């Protein structure tokens, strides 16, 4: 081979190698974009819902406000659309098209505006998930009737509503204001978000003081001996233990041994705090190490004790770094679901939890529960829930970045 050919070959190899690197990085980025955008795209239907505007006639009726049959009123109103439908089978099939949440919406509307009790007024009744999907995506009429979610008669009704111009698409805030439900059109993530908040609060309360003080001990007071070495190895290893193992610990120790309640954010918080502890300890130690020794020496020279040096001088200087590390650890705990599955936080919880002892789910677990649901409309809801999860995580991490940018001291 001539020199020139060899040089060319080496040059070529150089470019090729560089392109491999760039391509890998690019591919990883593309995957990130693909995941986020596919979630966003699939979540779009979750933010709107089709419904129908009907007149509810309460004007000439005698009404007992304390014992009002909201469901009956809704039923009466929707059956006014098709007076021919009067046998049981037809009525059942007809009312299947409307959301069972409509009665609750009516109750809320009436409670908000008392004057409505004596009036006829227009009320927006949500369609059920099947009818909603029909308007959003249509339906394959060539499929045999029993393989479809809607039969021919139901499709006819739905098309009829549309021709009459009664159907209306509206933004639906159910996702943000409701708890979980078996009906996709009224299911929301609020209960799960609150459950997550409680869990994270417990995690913070337990792991932050213990983590920071443990780190201070190891960094400032502990003499280097076998015991502290052993503790250090343990902390480093604990940071890499699979999260599900913490779930097993929680199940065996907290629930079966201590008899703490299943599904409660309290137990979830305890488990997650054991997981977050090593993260906080490692971050705190790094932050303490970065404080220059001159500060410590100066304080000691002024007659401060070891404890005073740490708490009055080193800790304030290291605090931004410690808080950043804590927030990042909490963000990880916030997105964690595997250990929570094992301690029973996968329960179907409709009510929004009121305390740390109430049964609750967490947001990531809610994603898992919905992803498992057979109803097609839950696909959009699940994607929307993942977006909410990612959005909250971005906010948490942004807080960490801002904290670091704003308060971090450069020595």
């Amino acid at each position, binding site marked *: 081979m001539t020199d020139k050919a060899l040089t060319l070959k080496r*040059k070529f190899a*150089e470019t090729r*190698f*560089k392109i*491999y*690197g*760039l*391509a*890998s*990085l690019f591919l*990883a*980025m593309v*995957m*990130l974009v693909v995941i986020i955008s596919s979630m966003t795209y699939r979540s779009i239907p979750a933010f709107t819902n089709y419904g129908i505007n009907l007149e509810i006639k309460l004007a000439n009726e005698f009404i007992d406000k304390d014992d009002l049959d909201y469901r009956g009123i809704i039923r009466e109103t929707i059956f006014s659309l098709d007076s021919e439908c009067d046998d049981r089978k037809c009525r059942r099939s007809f009312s299947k098209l409307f959301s069972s949440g409509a009665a609750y919406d009516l109750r809320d509307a009436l409670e908000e505006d008392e004057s409505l009790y004596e009036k006829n007024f227009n009320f927006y009744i949500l369609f059920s998930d099947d009818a909603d999907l029909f308007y959003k995506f249509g339906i394959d009429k060539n499929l045999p009737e029993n393989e479809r979610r809607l039969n021919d008669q139901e499709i006819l009704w739905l098309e009829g509503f549309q021709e009459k111009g009664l159907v209306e698409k509206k933004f639906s805030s159910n996702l943000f204001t409701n708890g979980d439900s078996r009906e996709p059109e009224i299911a929301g993530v609020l209960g799960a978000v609150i459950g997550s908040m409680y869990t994270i609060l417990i995690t913070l309360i337990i792991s932050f003081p213990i983590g920071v*003080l*443990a780190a201070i*001990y190891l960094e400032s*007071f*502990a003499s280097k001996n076998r015991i502290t070495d*052993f*503790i250090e*190895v*343990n902390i*480093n*290893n*604990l940071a*890499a*233990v*699979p999260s*599900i*193992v913490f779930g*097993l*610990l929680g*199940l*065996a*120790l907290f629930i*079966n041994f*201590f*008899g703490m309640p299943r599904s409660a954010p309290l137990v979830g918080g305890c488990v997650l705090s054991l997981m977050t*502890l090593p993260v906080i300890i490692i971050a705190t130690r790094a932050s303490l190490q970065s404080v220059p020794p001159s500060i410590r020496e100066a304080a000691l020279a002024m007659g401060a*004790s070891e*404890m005073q040096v740490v708490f009055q001088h080193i800790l304030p200087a290291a605090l931004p770094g410690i808080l950043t590390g804590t927030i990042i650890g909490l963000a*990880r705990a*916030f*997105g*964690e*679901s*595997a250990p929570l*599955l*094992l301690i029973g936080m*996968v329960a179907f919880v409709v009510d929004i939890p009121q305390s740390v002892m109430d049964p609750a789910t967490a947001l*990531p677990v809610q*994603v*898992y529960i919905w*992803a498992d649901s057979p109803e097609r409309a839950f696909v959009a809801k*699940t*994607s929307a829930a*993942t977006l909410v*999860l*990612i959005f909250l995580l971005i906010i948490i991490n942004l807080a960490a970045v801002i904290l670091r940018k704003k308060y971090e001291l450069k020595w």
Partner: protein
Amino acid sequence: MPNYHGLYSLLWSQLVPLLLLLIFIVIDASVKELFIFERLPESIILIGQDEVNYSVNVIKDNIRNLDVLISLDILSIESANGLYNQYFLYRTLFLSIISLLSGALGFFAISRLNMRFDARRNVEKILRFIFFIFSTVAVLTTFGIVLSLIFETLRFFSQVGFTEFMFGTHWSPQTAIREDQVGSSGSFGAIPIFTGTLLITFIAMIVAAPLGLYSAIYLSQYAKPSVRNYFKPMLEILAGIPTVVYGFFAALSVGPFIRSSGETLGLTVSTESALAAGLVMGIMIIPYVSSLSDDVMSAVPESLRDGSLALGATKSETIKKVIFPAALPGIVGAMLLAISRAIGETMIVVMAAGLAANLTANPLSAVTTVTVQIVTLLVGDQEFDSPKTLAAFALGLVLFFITLILNVIAMITVRRYRERYD
């Protein structure tokens, strides 16, 4: 130093009582149960375990209200009275002892205070001890994990043979609810689960190792600092996305995509294939590979690189022949950590890999993993003594030890490597 004197007496008077109070709260439930079991009538015990659990729970919730306790009609009036009085006495005694102790300790501390007393040093001694206790929480957690796993695993092996579990090739943990049920035996050969885990981990590493390594090479050796500062955090986002999101993505998009493309090629692919779970998991662990590899390659001394470049080697030749071999131990450590991450990953496989315990190396078929089985065995209602539930703890123990070994080897290699160039 009046602050320190105050703090000294505060610590003395509160520390031990608080600890006792904590113990009181922790054992409260078990004490209640102990008292209740003593008095539970024969008739309820005969009905069965569920009835007993229910009655105990109801009584437990109402133990501090005598009227309700009697109106429940579970206990006779005498035993309800007895229970109420006994618990009341226990509670009052325990709590008064705590309060008295607190007072006594406080007085003792105050009596020690005087002008010459070095409160600061004494307070700091106590605080230092408290901090030491806090720092052992990590050790206690590890012990807690090991003990609880081993305890349940031993119970599992008292019902299922060790060799059957470790070397059996058939896994179907469903045990009978009734005696006469078909297929009631339940078999616990974990080999299909281990191979399934290995298969998915292998696929994940095929994706993550080259992508992560090449990304790290590009970021640490080629990229300008501005590019690096921008892309490194971006890559880290991949590690920050919750795994449940990856799982949903794998189950919803990747699984069906692989299935349909497999079908156009005339292959039979199950929707929950090992490939789908492995690929997505691979994407997830890219940053674990890249960020540590990046660190170790940046830590290779400049002199090695300069020497190679001065001899006329191109940049890629330097990386391949000098930097990579020098950084190899660190890179191996990074890979081991990534493997440990992949083995322990739960949500992606739970949502995308399926439950069928197939003994196969075909990435297009459904396999199951250790973590999936732990979740399926423990989610939902469970009786705590069935081998089905205990099997999850045995699997957990295997998982813990394998990841522990990988982590420790990785940590040692990386540490040795760091020491070599420091």
